[in-house]
């Protein structure tokens, strides 16, 4: 009986294996050989961290749509270099995006108008008239952004999110999580990145009353900045990153800001 069971199972397995092998030959899908090559470089763990179903799907998008291979979080430096070499993208500078926090109000700067006793998340507090905070544009400090960060790269310090640049992968989840849209994602092309750490659209008088570190839209940065790097619209100064020039010059402009709200990273 043992022999019979071994032979019958082995026979069945062999039969199906040969049928499948035959079918594989007949039904083979012609695929771009580059995809298989790229797939060979990928880690084959199918973790989905890149946002695609599996490594094969990711490889397909790398080859066909020029997706950034750096989205793979699992690959080591060496493997990544080899892959980039294969794609002919070596030496090309890669600019990971980093989150910029457009608010500078620490706990001491956040002026309360009411005592908020609700659920301690930004999303909930924002629905309830903004956590009893006077400024309706600024960071409420409950840290929804730090909570969603999958890489432990964002922490709340003194009521403001602080980004750990070493850990940050630029996935942008924090920017999506912020109900007030305070966090923006920006490519770090230059050595230094300057940004206005305020999101208020209130007028100068009100900003002066409620926040010591708000943008009062005085326009000094716009006047002084080279090539129109800063521009004030709707009571708020914003940087146009396509125009950033010499960072020494920009730093001087930043120093002239009366509320010191232009920060650099």
């Amino acid at each position, binding site marked *: 009986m043992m022999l*019979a069971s071994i032979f019958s199972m082995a026979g069945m397995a062999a039969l*199906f294996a040969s049928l499948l092998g035959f079918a594989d030959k007949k039904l083979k899908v012609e695929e771009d050989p580059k995809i298989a090559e790229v797939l060979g470089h990928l880690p084959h763990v199918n973790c989905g961290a890149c946002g695609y179903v599996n490594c094969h799907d990711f490889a397909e998008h790398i080859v066909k749509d020029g997706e950034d291979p750096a989205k793979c979080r699992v690959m080591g430096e060496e493997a990544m270099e080899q892959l980039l070499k294969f794609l002919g993208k070596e030496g090309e500078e890669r600019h990971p995006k980093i989150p910029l926090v457009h608010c500078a109000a620490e706990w001491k700067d956040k002026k309360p108008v009411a005592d908020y006793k609700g659920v301690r998340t930004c999303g909930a507090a924002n629905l309830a008239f903004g956590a009893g905070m006077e400024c309706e544009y600024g960071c409420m400090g409950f840290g929804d952004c730090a909570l969603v960060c999958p890489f432990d790269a964002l922490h709340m310090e003194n009521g403001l999110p602080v980004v750990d640049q070493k850990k940050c992968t630029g996935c942008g989840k924090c920017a999506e999580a912020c109900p007030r849209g305070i966090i923006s994602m920006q490519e770090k092309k230059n050595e230094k990145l300057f940004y206005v750490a305020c999101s208020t659209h209130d007028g100068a008088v009100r900003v002066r009353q409620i926040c010591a570190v708000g943008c009062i839209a005085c326009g000094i940065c716009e006047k002084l900045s080279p090539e129109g790097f800063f521009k004030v619209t709707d009571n708020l100064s914003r940087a146009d990153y396509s125009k950033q020039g010499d960072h020494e010059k920009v730093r001087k402009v930043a120093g002239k800001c009366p509320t010191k709200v232009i920060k650099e990273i």
Partner: protein
Amino acid sequence: MGRTIEELILILIAASITNNFVLTYFLGICPFIGVSNKIESAVGLGMATTFVMTIAATVTWLIYYYILVPFKLVFLQYVAFIIVIASLVQFVEMVIKKVSPALYRALGIYLPLITTNCAILGLTLFMVLREYAFLESVVFGLGAGIGFTLALVVMAGIREELDFADIPEALKGTGITLILAGMLALAFMGFGGIISR
């Protein structure tokens, strides 16, 4: 002869409607919840599963009655049936990849997961348990497949409409789907009186 055709039709209707695998036996719930968000992919998976079920019923019947029973190897039925199902699924995967890459991508992980769809193993085991003859088991497999497709497509249809409905926050997604599945099962119970089999 007339009697056998009548029997076959009864088996077909019983397997697809009154004793629907998904809604009466609660087999194959995973793809039922997972792939029922669009009618198109629901039809695709339904067809694939129907194909696998029909062929699996045919092949396992042959294996059971011509290999396992004569050699007294009935205890190996689970292993043997799973081999058949796994190979069939692999084959279907190849065919779909060749014929419709879009469907292949839409089905994603649920296509290889047909292998572990308990509805299919359940089908082959029911077939043995109820001592169906060859033709009966083929029809039984076909009926079960049709029933699975039916449940999947009906569910997908409801879920597509559901996108426009105002669902309580807590029930969005899987929650409301499970409740719907329960209601659908209740509705299918209404067929129960037609045939008892």
